[in-house]
Structures are given as C-alpha cells and as structure tokens.
C-alpha cells in the first residue's frame, strides 16, 4: 500500500512548514498534540537534559515524570531521494532505577511518500544504587518496524546508506522484529559527561547478532548557576559531540562495510520546561549518509503518576 504524499506542498504556509522540517499531516498532528498536551497539563518541570540524540548517559527519568519528545532526522541520500524521518517518544520514570519508553516512528522520503514505520518499547534499568567510577545501566528494547524505518536511532551491524535507496513501497515489505540490548556506561566528572554504549541487536527471525556502538561527551557552558531566572544563562546550554556506527555481525566483526558518523550536539534547557536539541551529523566513510541533521523538542511533566492515579480514581 503506497504511503500518503506530503501535504502542504503548494501553499506558502506549507513551504514554511517544510522549511522547518514539518512535511506531513501526521507530523502536524504530532506536534499539535504535543503542544496541546503541554498546555492542558503543564506542571512545570525543568529538565537538565543532555544534548545526546543517539548516545545515552546513565541518568533515568525522575520517578513519576513523563517526558514527551519529538525528533526529526533529515538525511541526504546518494542514488536516491533525501528523507526526513521523525519519531515521538514517551518516556516515563517507573522507579528511580527503571525508565520505560515508547517510540512511534515515521518518515517522509522526498518525491516518494510518507509512511509510519514502526514502534519500539524500551526499558532502562540502573544496576547500581550509588554513583561509581563508571555507572552501568542495562537497556533492553523490542522493535517492531518495517524496512522503511530511517530514524537511524542506532546504527548496527552492516547498516549502510544504500539500504535506503529503494522506494518506500519496496522497503515496507520487509518486517523487522528486533531485540536490542545495550550496556550504557557513563560518568560525569567536573561537569563533563562521558558515555559509551556498546550494543547488540538480534532480528528475531533467523539473522545473526549484530553489533554497534555510540559514544559521547558533553558539558554545560557554565557549571555554576546564575542567581537570576534567565533563558539565555550559559548553564542552560549543554554542548557535546557523539560518534556512532556499526561493528558488523557475529560472523564478520569489525568496521568493514559499516557506516560511521560523528555529530556535534547542543541542547538548550529552557526555564519553561522545554528542551531543544540540534545535532548535525557527518558520515565518516563512503557507506554512510553524507549529512544528517537531527533536531528535537521535548518537555517533561512532573507528577504524571499522580495525574494518572486521579484519572483512574485514586485518592488525593
């Protein structure tokens, strides 16, 4: 079944939306829902979010808080059409040591179509009670997606640019049930965060285990908070860089035929509770997309558990 063509293609407003990365009715709905949700239920919560988009540090969602996030990835494609992939994340702190997350993914390939590409359910478990020299967090994710998925939330095995050269109609024929495990290792020292995430993924059909990695470093522009409330205080900005790529599979371990990326990243934590992130990424070899531009917006809602409790008739 062919996907829906991008809307707003001729209108001036459509051109503006396109310019800021909004291509389809589905995306408009997602962003509008996010804004409405925040305006209706807005117990303000400031989140000191890292700028990473691919790498995870060891910090989990505060218990009872829900973070709603929208991300986009614009990618160039040799021998094919450029694309804009997008996803919405709902991240909930079940416990101080357990965060669960639901992703809904989609993408628009220019000159082709817009398609919903799948969903993921992710869980992160903190393994140690206190801070240590290195802090491990176990990450387990189940993905149910199709071959048109282009969000590139992780790069694994021998994922390469040419995998995306086919049309959406063809790519959607492939169905992927995947289990993905990561060990998130992270340390914060003198304001710097260093994180390394080795990953192993297994397509639950008869495919071999595939491997990959992501690593990042980041630091706020100022370590000391200013006494005044301000949007542009340097402590609200965090800058860093990520590097990520595939490491082959169990039969061909290594960098051969893999794609690799490096991406500077920045986050702006606004006092209103919103966080904006941007990260231009660059392919490091001929198998990688030349350029990926990622951006995202998120908002944290503290006390979501109480709201949910009241909704289901709990006592105040």
């Amino acid at each position, binding site marked *: 079944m062919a996907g829906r063509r991008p809307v707003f293609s001729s209108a001036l407003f459509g051109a503006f939306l396109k310019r800021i990365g909004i291509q389809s009715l589905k995306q408009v709905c997602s962003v509008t829902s996010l804004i409405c949700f925040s305006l209706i239920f807005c*117990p303000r*919560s*400031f989140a*000191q979010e*890292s700028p990473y988009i691919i790498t995870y*540090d060891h*910090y*989990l969602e*505060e*218990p*009872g*808080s*829900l973070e709603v996030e929208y991300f986009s990835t614009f990618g160039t494609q040799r021998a094919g059409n450029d694309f804009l992939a997008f996803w919405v994340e*709902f991240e*909930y*702190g*079940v*416990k*101080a*040591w*357990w965060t*669960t*997350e*639901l992703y809904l993914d989609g993408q628009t390939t220019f000159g082709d179509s817009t398609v919903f590409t*799948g*969903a*993921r*359910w992710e869980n992160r478990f*903190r393994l140690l*009670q*206190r*801070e240590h020299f290195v802090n491990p967090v176990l990450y387990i994710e*189940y993905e*149910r997606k199709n071959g048109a998925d282009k969000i590139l939330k992780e790069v694994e095995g021998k994922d390469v640019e040419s995998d995306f050269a086919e049309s959406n109609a063809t790519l959607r024929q492939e*169905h992927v*049930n995947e289990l993905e495990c990561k060990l998130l290792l992270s340390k*914060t020292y*003198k*304001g710097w*965060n260093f994180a390394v995430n080795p990953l192993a993924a297994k397509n639950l059909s008869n495919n071999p285990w595939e491997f990959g990695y992501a690593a990042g470093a980041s630091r*706020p522009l100022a*370590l*000391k*908070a*200013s*006494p*005044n*409330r301000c949007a542009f205080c340097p*402590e609200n900005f965090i800058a860093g860089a990520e590097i990520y790529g595939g490491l082959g599979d169990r039969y061909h371990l290594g960098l051969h035929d893999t794609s690799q990326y490096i991406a500077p990243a920045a986050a702006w934590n606004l*006092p209103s509770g919103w966080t904006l992130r941007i990260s231009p990424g660059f392919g490091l070899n001929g198998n990688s997309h030349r350029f990926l531009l990622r951006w995202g917006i998120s908002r944290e809602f*503290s*006390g*979501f*558990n*109480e709201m*949910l*409790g009241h909704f*289901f008739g*709990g*006592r105040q």
Partner: protein
Amino acid sequence: MTTGFMHPRFAMLGLFIATCVFGSSAQLASARQDNPSSANNPNWNYEEIKKAPEKARLMRNPFENDSDALRAGGKLFERNCAGCHGMKGEGRKKAPSLIRDEVQQATPGALFWVLTNGVVWHGMPVWSKLPEPQRWQIVMFLKSLGVSTRP
C-alpha cells in the same frame, strides 16, 4: 507479521500504558504507606544521610556566605527538587520534609553526598547530572530552609 489476537504495535502500546499505570499506582501506594497522613511523617527514612562516608561529611561548601549562591540554589531547588519535596521543602507524598532536624543538622558535605548519589531504591534519583557547583548551591539553599522559609 501479526499475532492472532492483537497487533504487536498495540500490544507494545498496551504494555507501555500498563507499565505506567502499574508504576503510578505502586508509587502512590508506597507513598501512602510511607506517609499516610502528613508530609512531616516521622516514618520517612533519613538513614541515608548517616551513610555518608566521613570524607564526604567533612567536605565544606565552597559557597558559604555567598548570597548569590543562595539565590541560585533557590532557583535550582524550585526547578529540580520542589516537584517532590514541596516549594518550601516541607515534604509531600513522594518525598520527605527537608526542614526536619535530620536534614538541617546534617553537614553540608553529607547533604551533598546524598544529592550526588540519590536514594535510588527509595525513589530519589541521582543528581550528579547537575554540575558540582550547582549541587553545592542547592545544599546552601537546603541549609537555609531551617532558619527561614525562602530567600
């Protein structure tokens, strides 16, 4: 590939919602059990403060007597802590009062240690994601809660 009775995407959505609902009810039930009637319930466990190692307890706040740091600490407290502990640190269902003697008589170093390491199994996340100076600014504000309400 779909299962006989439910599409996997809906199954995932269901599982996520079930986890949220289960987590919420478990947290609320736990909070009620810990704190059935009052935010200042003495049953809250302050033992974690006493677990701070000697070296941590003896650390001094580099911002002592810095009024700007106190104001910054108030701002950080409101952003990061007030959601659970209340705007004046009076305590709520989810988290204990910070005005009580157990907290106010603790050394700044011990409070800094608890803030850094959290009390993860009892619901308080680690706050080492805040840079060290910001954690000290929060500690300064915490200590001020005992003598006045808000700066």
